[in-house]
């Protein structure tokens, strides 16, 4: 029993030393959801294999569709309506058209996703900087005769407020990758349904 407890305590200490990141994680990734950097076709696509060499950009209709429905502000319903219209325009050579659109969506989504993930990591770095500032100000306020320093108190309040605001922002932005993944899944399902 004593051995079990000792081993447990040792493991807990090791787990917390120096804020080391767990294996397989990026130390700058602040979200509870584990980091997944790319979304591959195999993760979502329910149609025939998507060849990496598919040239979707030379097809104006596919390129227009991808450019129109991938921006983050586009509502899923509007994107699905655009896909329905695209399918309606491609009654001939339908499979090739669908594969071009799917390949374009996956490729462009991963580019947009990479930018988003980099922005989230930058926010996490800034959050750590704010934490350091608050810690330093805490230390300064603990010094003799500094607790009532009005200017120091103002800086301390401002830094703390900035820290908590950044925490709220991080909570919000950490949800965005899943929201984009959900919408991409619906887009690809709509395209795959066009094959049946």
């Amino acid at each position, binding site marked *: *029993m004593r051995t*079990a*407890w000792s*081993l*447990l305590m040792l*493991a*807990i200490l090791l*787990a*917390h030393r120096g804020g080391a990141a*767990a*294996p*397989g*994680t990026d130390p700058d990734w602040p979200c509870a959801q*584990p*980091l*997944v*950097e*790319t*979304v*591959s*076709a*195999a*993760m*979502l696509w*329910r149609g025939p294999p998507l060849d990496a060499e598919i040239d979707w950009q030379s097809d104006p209709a596919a390129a227009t569709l991808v450019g129109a429905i991938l921006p983050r502000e586009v509502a899923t319903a509007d994107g699905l309506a655009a896909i329905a219209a695209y399918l309606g325009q491609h009654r001939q050579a339908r499979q090739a058209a669908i594969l071009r659109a799917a390949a374009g969506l996956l490729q462009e989504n991963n580019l947009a996703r990479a930018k988003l993930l980099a922005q989230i990591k930058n926010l996490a770095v800034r959050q750590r900087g704010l934490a350091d500032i608050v810690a330093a100000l805490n230390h300064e306020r603990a010094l003799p005769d500094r607790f009532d320093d009005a200017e120091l108190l103002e800086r301390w309040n401002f830094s703390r407020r900035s820290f908590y605001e950044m925490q709220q922002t991080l909570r919000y932005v950490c949800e965005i990758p*899943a929201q984009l*993944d*959900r919408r991409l*899944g*619906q887009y690809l399902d709509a395209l795959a349904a066009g094959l049946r």
Partner: protein
Amino acid sequence: MHSGRTIPDPVGQQRSAGRRLTPNLLAVLVATLLGLLPCGIGATETVLVSNEKGNSISVLDANSLTLLRSVAVGQRPRGILLSKDRKYLYICASDDNRIDVLDLDSYQLQSPLPSGADPETFALDPDGTHLYVSNEDNSLISIIDIAQKRVIGEIPVGVEPEGMAVSPDGRWIVNTSETTNMAHFIDSTTHKLVANVLVDSRPRHAEWTEDGRQVWVSSELGGTVSVIDADSRQVIHKIEFTIPGVPRQAIQAVGIVIGKDRKLAFVALGPSNRIAVIDAQSFAVMKYLLVGQRVWNLAFNHDESRLYSTNGVSNDISMIDVKSLAAVKSVPVGNQPWGVVVRP
């Protein structure tokens, strides 16, 4: 929310066939046939799903996956369990720091049970009298006496306790701790920690085999399942997953179910959007089933002919036919489905 659809159930029809039709029973039968009762005689099993962000429980017909109703519960419902008599659903209302109790006949919430801070998952002992709750925020397991509605003990464990499972004979409790990367074996009589087994990173779920000889532990970041011999408390096998075309990062092992005959097991693999089918004797991966996005937890129906998964990003659940090992259907539920159980 009621679909108005009643699914014929041969078992229910047989059961009612030998009874004298009293006025009350006749009224129930007529109402059921008219589709006025969601769970009357003739109804099938129901699937119950906790929606982590929807703060609700979705109730679905297990055959048709028709949504029968949605019940508002406490904030951030995650782990869910049936009471031993299957009359109540216990719900970890994580952000309300309590266990909600839902009457499954009236669908009314009863007075809640205490839980300790931030309850995420729990396990019921085999006699149905106590719940063991993992308190993620304070590295404790709380022991809840259901009849007395009070916390009767706390067991310190590793950092961020998560998976909870009680052995079929009730003798051992296993808890996994996400940050310490261990499965903790606890004597259920003395409530003392007797062994810690190191597993891969961020262990999420523990599942006993029906014969009590093994405990399977999934590791979300490690992307593996450790099979632990319950007697020696050694990892005897590590199941790894490789899915062509899917990045390694996306293969995150979470929910596990193991057939009672230990022929097949199923493992939810998170954002790979797959369920792995495992030969539970050889531990070989037989197949990967593509379901919804971020597949999280799993539950069999009572005869293990069907399997249900919660898919937290696509906000739906999937139904798998176990005989053909095929995903049959997915239907939307609430916002971020998390836990799932099937009520016979």
